[in-house]
């Protein structure tokens, strides 16, 4: 198991490099916007990856609420955190792209605004996890994740209708796309998805380590009180290392 991670890391690195090469040289230059349009190949895949991660978070939260197993909760934490990172990338590259093309930093474009609202929802999700330290944090966070997911379609429709009222420039342009560009886009998306998977896996192992250390400290604080409890804690002797609950 240990060896797979570095191999996957190298493969992802190569894939990212190849995708970068495709985006910079291979993809045809866009007639109107010129080379700056190539931000598209980082901006859009990051958004799709972020939405994918938030979807994973929803699934993991629902599973946790039903079966209460700690692994689903850990996956929920990881997917939310890595999702927010990718969302940040989208929210940073968006304005950088809009500035040279339309001369404005921010446009209430449908996709960009939806991403912004999603980012706000999942940052509040992470805040809730950090602020509530009770043993029931996972349950509260799972409930909030479901609320967040229910909110997404409503956000999308409210902004979509708002856009029809006040049309504004659309990032990434609607309508059909040059097949070669689409090809490069998909390669980049594949590369970023692998990278996201790698990040999530590392973050998952970090989360598991954190929980193990937390549980060990909990036991330590009780045993460490120097109390010679006559009946040794059964937890030490009998139950094997079943991993943190």
């Amino acid at each position, binding site marked *: 198991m240990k060896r797979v991670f570095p191999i996957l890391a190298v493969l992802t690195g190569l894939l990212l490099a190849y995708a970068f090469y495709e985006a910079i040289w291979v993809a045809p230059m866009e007639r109107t916007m010129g*080379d700056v349009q190539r931000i598209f190949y980082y901006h859009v895949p*990051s958004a799709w990856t972020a939405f994918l991660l938030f979807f994973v978070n929803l699934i993991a939260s629902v599973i946790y609420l039903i079966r209460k197993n700690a692994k689903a909760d850990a996956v929920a934490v990881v997917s939310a955190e890595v999702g927010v990172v990718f969302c940040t990338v989208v929210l940073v590259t968006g304005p*950088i792209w809009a500035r040279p*093309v339309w001369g404005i930093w921010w446009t209430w474009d449908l996709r960009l605004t939806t991403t912004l609202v999603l980012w706000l929802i999942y940052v509040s999700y992470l805040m809730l996890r950090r602020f509530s330290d009770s043993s029931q944090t996972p349950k509260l966070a799972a409930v909030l994740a479901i609320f967040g997911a229910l909110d997404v379609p409503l956000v999308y429709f409210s902004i979509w209708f708002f856009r029809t009222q006040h049309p504004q420039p659309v990032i990434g342009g609607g309508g059909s796309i040059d097949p070669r560009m689409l090809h490069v886009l998909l390669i980049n998306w594949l590369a970023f998805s692998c990278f996201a998977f790698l990040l999530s896996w590392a973050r998952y192992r970090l989360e598991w380590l954190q929980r193990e250390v937390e549980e060990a400290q909990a036991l330590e604080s009780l045993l460490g009180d120097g109390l010679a409890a006559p009946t040794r804690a059964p937890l030490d002797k009998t139950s094997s290392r079943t991993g943190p609950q």
Partner: protein
Amino acid sequence: MNSIKFLYAAYIATWLIHALYLGTMVRRYSRLRQQKKNLGTGGK
């Protein structure tokens, strides 16, 4: 057209964000490994 600057800015920004995140993860990882080692020796 100086729009190329924005292209590089966007790409750099992307990897800067990912690098920052990886940095926090590595820092937390080493801090936890340290705590785990302390636990092993029973010291606080």
